[in-house]
């Protein structure tokens, strides 16, 4: 064939592996002999992993309490009744008492959980202005149209932070009190209210507008808080590094949840005596009941949980690994049986030929 390369015609196609569709190629065949060891190996590995994950999840403790206040469910029902009258929520307080027979290992995280709350509704989810939240002064005065109807107050003042998400900010507050021994006074357990939002959110994505004369309040002059808010955004927290748009409660709330039942981190307990967890004893959680949920059939819960490297308590992953692993092994066996039986048959057929 060498001579043809020199004597070839002008239109002769190139004799390259690509043009002739002869690129060197690996041509694997998915046969039982390959699949069998694969299945057994994968199955064993999955079962191993599954066991690990399952025990890891089982080691996590959770303690939760529904304080929605449905009639007859504790002292929050008083507040809930008030809420039903559709009156602006008065500063109603209630408490949850519980006792720990043994140490609740730490670090302990305090979550609140809402149910039947659709933060993932599209109209709700778009109702925010990220440039306003990034501290852009122009956006502060001119909130994006997506925020409507929480774009401007009736007076024409721009709302900061604008939008439905901000307007519906969760505003119950909790404080935790510990009684070491019966009869002793309750001591307040310090709740760390920072580090509950993504670092990048409250340090990069959310920024306060530039201070005016060193004052955040002046920076927000000419704006109005959302209608449901009782205080302006710059008064969300007394801590100057945790107020305004970068208030971590606010930032946490602004990360909308995926599902209608969701938890949000409220605080971390890791200071002082409580860094190793909550010691045994009686506890009281004081709840300021502001947030109305019964109107939409929602529930409010308070959750104490500790955390492993893989997050909160969820046996699903471990169980799923175990199931899939066992399925692999099962399939492997079925395949083995079929393989052996049909191998024999094939051999016989070949013999016959």
């Amino acid at each position: 064939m060498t001579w043809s390369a020199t004597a070839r015609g002008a239109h002769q196609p190139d004799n390259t592996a690509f043009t002739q569709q002869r690129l060197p190629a690996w041509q694997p065949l998915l046969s039982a002999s390959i699949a069998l060891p694969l299945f057994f190996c994968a199955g064993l590995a999955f079962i191993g992993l599954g066991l690990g994950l399952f025990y890891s999840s089982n080691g996590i403790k959770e303690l939760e309490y529904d304080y929605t206040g449905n009639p007859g469910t504790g002292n929050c029902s008083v507040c809930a009744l008030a809420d039903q009258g559709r009156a602006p929520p008065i500063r109603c307080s209630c408490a949850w008492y519980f006792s720990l027979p043994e140490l609740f290992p730490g670090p302990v995280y305090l979550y609140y959980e809402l149910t039947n709350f659709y933060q993932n509704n599209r109209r709700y989810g778009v109702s925010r202005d990220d440039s306003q939240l990034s501290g852009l002064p122009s956006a502060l005065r001119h909130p994006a149209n997506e925020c409507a109807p929480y774009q401007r107050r009736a007076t024409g003042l721009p709302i900061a932070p604008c939008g439905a998400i901000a307007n519906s900010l969760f505003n119950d507050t909790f404080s935790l009190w510990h009684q070491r021994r019966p009869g002793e006074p309750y001591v307040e357990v310090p709740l760390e209210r920072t580090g509950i939002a993504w670092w990048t959110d409250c340090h990069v994505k959310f920024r306060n507008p530039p201070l005016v004369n060193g004052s955040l309040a002046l920076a927000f002059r000419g704006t109005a808080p959302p209608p449901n808010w009782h205080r302006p955004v710059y008064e969300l927290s007394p801590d100057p590094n945790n107020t305004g748009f970068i208030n971590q409660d606010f930032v946490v709330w602004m990360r909308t949840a995926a599902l209608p039942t969701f938890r949000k981190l409220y605080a971390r307990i890791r200071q002082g005596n409580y860094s190793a967890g909550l010691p045994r004893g009686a506890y009281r959680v004081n709840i300021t009941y502001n947030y109305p949920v019964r109107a939409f059939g929602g529930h409010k819960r308070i959750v104490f949980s500790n955390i492993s490297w893989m997050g909160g308590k969820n046996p699903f992953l471990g169980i799923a690994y175990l199931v899939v692993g066992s399925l692999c092994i099962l399939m492997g066996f079925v395949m083995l049986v079929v393989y052996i039986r049909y191998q024999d048959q094939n051999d016989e057929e070949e013999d016959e030929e």
Partner: protein
Amino acid sequence: GFDPPHQSDTRTIYIANRFPQNGLYTPQKFIDNRIISSKYTVWNFVPKNLFEQFRRVANFYFLIIFLVQLMIDTPTSPITSGLPLFFVITVTAIKQGYEDWLRHNSDNEVNGAPVYVVRSGGLVKTRSKNIRVGDIVRIAKDEIFPADLVLLSSDRLDGSCHVTTASLDGETNLKTHVAVPETAVLQTVASLDTLIAVIECQQPEADLYRFMGRMIITQQMEEIVRPLGPESLLLRGARLKNTKEIFGVAIYTGMETKMALNYKSKSQKRSAVEILRFISDFLAFLVLYNFIIPISLYVTVEMQKFLGSFFIGWDLDLYHEESDQKAQVNTSDLNEELGQVEYVFTDKTGTLTENEMQFRECSINGIKYQEINGRLVSEGPTPDSSDGNLPYLNSLPHLTTSSSFRTSPESETELIKEHDLFFKAVSLCHTVQISSVQTDGIGDGPWQSNLAPSQLEYYASSPDEKALVEAAARIGIVFIGNSEETMEVKTLGKLERYKLLHILEFDSDRRRMSVIVQAPSGEKFLFAKGAESSILPNCVGGEIEKTRIHVDEFALKGLRTLCMAYKRLTSKEYEAINRRLFEARTALQQREEKLADVFHFIEKDLILLGATAVEDRLQDRVRETIEALRMAGIKVWVLTGDKHETAVSVSLSCGHFHRTMNILELINQKSDSQCAEQLRQLARRIKEDHVIQHGLVVDGTSLSLALREHEKLFMEVCRNCSAVLCCRMAPLQKAKVIRLIKISPEKPITLAVGDGANDVSMIQEAHVGIGIMGKEGRQAARNSDYAIARFKFLSKLLFVHGHFYYIRIATLVQYFFYKNVCFITPQFLYQFYCLFSQQTLYDSVYLTLYNICFTSLPILIYSLLEQHIDPHVLQSKPTLYRDISKNRQLSIKTFLYWTILGFSHAFIFFYGSYFLIGKDISLLGNGQMFGNWTFGTLVFTVMVITVTVKMALETHFWTWINHLVTWGSIIFYFVFSLFYGGILWPFLSSQNMYFVFIQLLSSGSAWFAIILMVVTCLLLDIVKKVFERQLHPTNTEKAQLIKANSSVKCLDSMCCFSEGETACASFGRMLERVVGRCSPTHVSRSWSASDPFYTNDRSILTLSTMDSSTC
């Protein structure tokens, strides 16, 4: 259905537009001589092209989607679908515009060709498009007629001329046309100017062989009426041969010429696998699928088709070295149709055959000879064995050595004499016309004695005769020409003039012809030539038995045989013959019977001279190709304009008809009822005899009768015949046959192969039209979808390319469904958890890029490179083609499988992620929470990986490119997401995705979940694949095993560095690697044309055909 609306049934043409003075005429309007094959003009291009494009379901669908997105508030931006649509429309418009521009150019070339027209007493040079009906046109030798003309006069006294209609109907013989005697004398422009005549003829119609009209010539105040028939009509597209010049009057011009009427208008062909038609059925009850047909599917399919079609042109196996022609792809829309062909309609001349007859062997006086390089070599033992093996007569063509021949022994001269007589018979007993090639003005008469045989061009109505006369010329007995009475033969350089006394013409009942000539010596001879069955019984002398054996041997080799015989006539005998012939020829009643009687009387008591064997040279490997097509379950029909006998013999020799086949005939049917009766009879015969294979021969006239009234019956007969041969077909009839098959209830995919202009309409009618780039111009190649140089390339084109393209496109389409079901279903499921508020699960950038970037390349590369079976396994086992017939890969079953797979994967992604989040617990080690975007990104990540790995599972042919795009896509997704989520994008209004992906990856649980979900998704699919291969392997899967132990390892395929080479080679070398030149061991052509084309394992093949027939 071609008849344009005309007011009257006839048209009246005033020659040279000399209208009657009295004004008693109604002027008829005729169109001009412009040929328009282009579709658009500058003005109507934009609207017409847009209209055409939006007539396609796909484009219209996307337009609607785009408009809906523009009008109502939807989660995705209208740009997502608008931009690709705009891109597609623009590219298509540019492509079509360019193609139309080329058509305009070729139209202009044709329309602007110079012609000479007689106007106002002189010869005026004008352009072809300016010819009007009634103009007298002058055509010189070898020119093509620019319009349909009625012959007025030629340079010959009798007003005859010769034309060849090769480009119209594929017949290569010279046809004689004659003028009306009154006009034949008008040989000059001046005399033509005096002609006052009117032609009345029928309105234009497409039938090439039908023409009726009359000419009314006014001479000396007297009107002479002469009938006009097809013999005086010169068709546009035919070529003047052998005649210096002619004058003719244009009667049909431009688009009304028979040639133009025989062209089908060029319409856009659409692939039957056209996905959207298929989809539209589902659309009706699955509104959900609205989302599932993204425009990117359309773009990918178009790209796949466009890029994929290059491989056909690049294929060295489709390259014809002798003619330096590679395969051409004119329409890339139909690549996958090549894998679906059920009927192949092929032209004969030039497609199956080389279009040249070759004299091969002869048997003279009981001795067999073979012609090798222009010399006769005897075969086997000869009477005198002393020098029997030596070639003799080898020196005959050369005068210089002929002296040695004279001194040869006595016995040999005797033999020479026999040869002499035999070849004289060959060169005298024929009806060949001669056309000399003009050599530098020496004159154009065929009478020059110094004319070498190579300079003579023979034209014969039968190519066999031509081959025989040529062979005789090579041997040394050259026929140089004939005039009315004499035939001139040059024997060994010596001119001999024979007086031609009678020709007893060939007819298909007698199956022989003979001539009676008077030799220069005064002796009278009768030479007869014919089929052995008609000559041998009439012979009384010569080596009859030996010759009969030889003839049978020739026939077995597939050669076309003729026997030659002679008889010496005494003057007394001749007188009797002459008298009887004259009586019969002038008889007024029963002339035909009388003539037959006389012929029979004359052609008896012959002395056998020998037999000839002519090879109608089939193209290379035609027999194997047809055999392979049949094994692949494809029905082969031969459609030819040629005569019945020739067609049947070619059919036999190319393996289309077998000798064991029962050949049924439906020919020469004159009436409707007769035809129906014959059809019923054939149907009965087929039913009675269903074990044996049947072949059907139909001719054009019978076919048109059969199609007119008895379509169903005819189709019934055809379907039960394993081979059908249609002869004497007009171009449009060929197209009609194809249309008939196309619209039959099974709606089979048809393919037409042809090489001449006469095949254009059938090429355009068939689903797939293949042009053979042959000798008869490139018209067929231009109008075809694919053009190849040889018929044999069809097998690679169908079995390899067609198969690949079909598998590729089928997988492409289904994978696209699958991946979009995977894509959209979680989105849909999410609606249950967000109050049906149309919240998107994925970020809009992901939504847009999913089909464009993240999952597009692996499937595109797959659809370009995939080879699930080795190409030469495919080619050597045509039965594998049956595995994909009837659109099997796109059947409801496989479609459902892919769809269910998509749904189950989607459920796994979504509910896997859903349960992972559970009651929205934290997945991070620091207790912080994910939001809805992280949830969506988790689903999306699992999806991108799963869908890509699923593609990897489907891929059977892993080149380095596949590795690159598969793993590259996943890596790209991660890199892109990190980048996209790593920055606050200044121009985006929402920063939803900021750090979402990084947060996701920082969660251990998420990693475990991703691995789990990907493995779970693919688990079931792997199980299914393994079980299917183990339990019910298809033929395809069995065939894969053949090559399974061949061995490029995974790593080898990824990098093709040869040993000792550094990675940092220059860029040029890298490019070489890209095209795969790097590794010579892999690149060497593992199989070549010299390989056995079809492997010997016929047993397997026949077994599998039986299998398929039983079930």
